[in-house]
């Protein structure tokens, strides 16, 4: 984590105090500091870049609207990621409902993926890895993505997932093991 580079910068908790007083620069610093991890968390749940961007924006908006309720019992990032997870899940439920409604109106379901030749041509390795990642249980998926994409420690991941450092480590290694098996087939 880039904790060393932050040592001279104000802490998140100090910035939150400044945000409460209406300091726009403090808002900007917090967004710069956390937008990427929020986006990656949302992307891990939604598996879609545009939706993840929308969910990230909503997450920040909800977090700042509720900033008075942040008491500093957990780290600001933990609190923010909890909001982001809820927001991404809410959006995912909404999209699933819409898809179900649409599919209910169709007589013939799409047949994409039935032709192996087309599948091989269309799907790059990146797409394949993303699909396999999307199939992991949520805690494994988030542990893998937050560890590899964002470099969070197991302690930070555990806190962000309302869990422990040990369980974040186990989820990460199970996720990696499962990815290895699925990507080898």
């Amino acid at each position, binding site marked *: 984590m880039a904790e060393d580079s932050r040592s001279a910068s104000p802490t998140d908790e100090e910035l939150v105090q400044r945000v409460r007083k209406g300091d726009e620069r403090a808002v900007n610093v917090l967004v710069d500091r956390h937008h990427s991890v929020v986006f990656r968390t949302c992307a891990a749940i939604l598996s879609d870049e545009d939706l*993840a961007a929308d969910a990230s924006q909503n997450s*920040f908006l909800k977090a700042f609207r509720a900033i*008075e309720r942040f008491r500093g019992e957990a780290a600001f990032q933990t609190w923010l990621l909890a909001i982001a997870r809820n927001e991404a899940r809410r959006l995912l439920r909404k999209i699933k409902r819409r898809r179900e409604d649409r599919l209910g109106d169709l007589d013939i379901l799409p047949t994409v993926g039935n032709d192996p030749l087309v599948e091989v041509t269309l799907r790059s390795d990146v797409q394949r890895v*993303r699909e396999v990642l999307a199939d992991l249980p949520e805690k494994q998926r988030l542990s893998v*993505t937050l560890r590899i994409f964002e470099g969070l420690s197991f302690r930070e991941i555990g806190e962000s997932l309302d869990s422990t450092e040990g369980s974040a480590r186990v989820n990460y290694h199970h996720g990696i093991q499962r990815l290895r098996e699925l990507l080898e087939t």
Partner: protein
Amino acid sequence: MTKTECADVKDLLPQWIRGELGESDRAVVLQHISSCASCPEEVELLRRIQAAAFSTPASLASEIKSVLVAEMAVVGEIESDAGLEYGWVGRFGGRQLATAAAVVLALGAGLIWQRMQALPEVGPLGQDPFAVVWPSDDADVAGVPTLEDLSAEDLALLLEEFGG
């Protein structure tokens, strides 16, 4: 290669592929993977996963900032319209908004109470003050005595008048 050694190095690999390891840890990882059979495979897998990361859109941070700043401006306008002088303080605070709403409500209730107090207490029709403001047809017969109010003499005169 011991399992413990591999497990320790595997814990460091995500930071190593991100280039975030300190010099001593980096040396440990390099030395280990040059002689380990399984860890280089893990490195390869982590790199494939890393390549599959959704890139954070370049404009995302500025878009979020714009939304938040716009939100701050809207809250500021509401405070200003309510005649409150919070400045930047509590611009995001729901508590201040609730206070502003309470003040507006209290002012409104006070105004209504004041108007009610200004109405005459007793009108020609008794205790109903609205009857004075909005007179009805009933006002035309206000003050006419009922039969019970008449004296025996007046009642006899009235009966005589009706009876012809």
